[in-house]
């Protein structure tokens, strides 16, 4: 991405915005914060003869292993934003599983790195559903987070999209035979579906 593409040009006057820079006080200096001060929605409103500047964090030029490590750390940093809503053991299990999945030994250079927004949707989902019984986590070719729940008689999978959307499949074994279902819905919709299957509703 070229530098110019990071800016949206709108109406006259210069304004540099980030989450909290939108609340300026004259002469007020703040203590630097790692996340809140990052420009989330960088925008320069243009006026001839004036100059604007902002500070942007970019990953250092890194080799393959470092890029994988940085992607892993980014997912863990995202988890920190939700840590107060996650049981400590669940957070530790998530980190442990991420360490297993995202490492240079098992990753190929051409593989898409996991999308942060997809992972965050998974976090939102487990907090919303209060269901921490997932069995495994993976990453799709598009970088979406894939999650599976495997319990006797049931295999449930979910593909968490970056927007509020989940594709899911369920395979149920019961006395009257196997059944396969697939669906697409919002995170809230998937909660109802998943809890139905995980509570054994489909086997009844």
């Amino acid at each position: 991405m070229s530098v110019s593409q990071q800016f949206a040009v709108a109406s006259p006057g210069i304004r540099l915005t980030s989450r909290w820079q939108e609340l300026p006080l004259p002469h007020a200096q703040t203590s630097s914060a790692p996340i809140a001060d990052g420009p989330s929605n960088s925008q320069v409103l243009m006026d001839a003869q004036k100059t604007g500047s902002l500070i942007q964090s970019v990953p250092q030029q890194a080799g393959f292993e470092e890029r994988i490590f940085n992607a892993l750390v980014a997912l863990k940093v995202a988890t920190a934003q939700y840590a107060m809503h996650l049981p400590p053991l669940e957070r530790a299990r998530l980190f442990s599983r991420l360490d297993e999945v995202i490492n240079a030994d098992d990753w190929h250079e051409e593989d898409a790195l996991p999308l942060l927004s997809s992972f965050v949707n998974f976090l939102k989902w487990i907090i919303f559903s209060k269901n921490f019984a997932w069995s495994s986590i993976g990453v799709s070719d598009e970088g979406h987070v894939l999650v599976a729940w495997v319990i006797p008689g049931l295999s449930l999978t979910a593909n968490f999209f970056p927007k509020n959307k989940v594709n899911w499949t369920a395979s149920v074994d019961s006395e009257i035979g196997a059944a396969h279902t697939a669906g697409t819905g919002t995170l809230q919709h998937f909660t109802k579906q998943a809890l139905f299957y995980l509570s054994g509703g489909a086997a009844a």
Partner: protein
Amino acid sequence: MVASRHYDRPPITEAVIDVKFDANLTERERERLMERFKGRFPSVEERKTITVEFGPKEAAAKAAPAGYKMTAANALDLVLINDASFGTARLAPYDRWETFLASAKENFDIFSGVVGRKIIGRLGVRFINRIDIPRQKLETRAIDDLFRLNIALPGGMERERRAQSFAVDFTEATTGAKVLLRYGDATPALLDHLSFNLDIDAFWEGNVPTKIEEMWKSAEALRHAKNACFELSITDEIRELFQ
């Protein structure tokens, strides 16, 4: 003085102890610091100041190095090496002040070992809290009943308030520390919740003790200032959300 409380699940998303200097660090100094800290903080993001100059016919952009944001492998602890400041930061889950301050002291000792003593112009303790409130709770309660912060508009002016945010720069009553407090709506972090940021930056400016031991002692007063501001800003109904 308002009593500090310990919460089981504090809503702190970011805590920073930030030391600002009277003069900028050189690019070489920042690089040396980055190399020195890289063992403990291996994930490195380079910070760049991007300047856009607008002429009558064309715009030109240039990027200049502005420091580093370095994250530990635990993805919780960071150091921030900026143009003219050095910070130690902690993300959630935040543990306790004593641990955090010890980490800041250790990092600052390493910093001084690499680039020597600098004249300190500002010492800040900034805690950013994000408070997530179930929508259901807000069906029966107004947000102004939950926080003790509010912007009062003249009577007869508003029919319905959709959002608010404000910043206040003031001197804290009990410690005399300066405080920059920002409060307002945030992007909802959870499903079916609304989120509110309470960002408290307590600082000394221009009167930071020159002796390091005294400087850290003065950080304790900043801690009390930010705790007092936090406790006075919220109600018990908010406290219940993270106890």
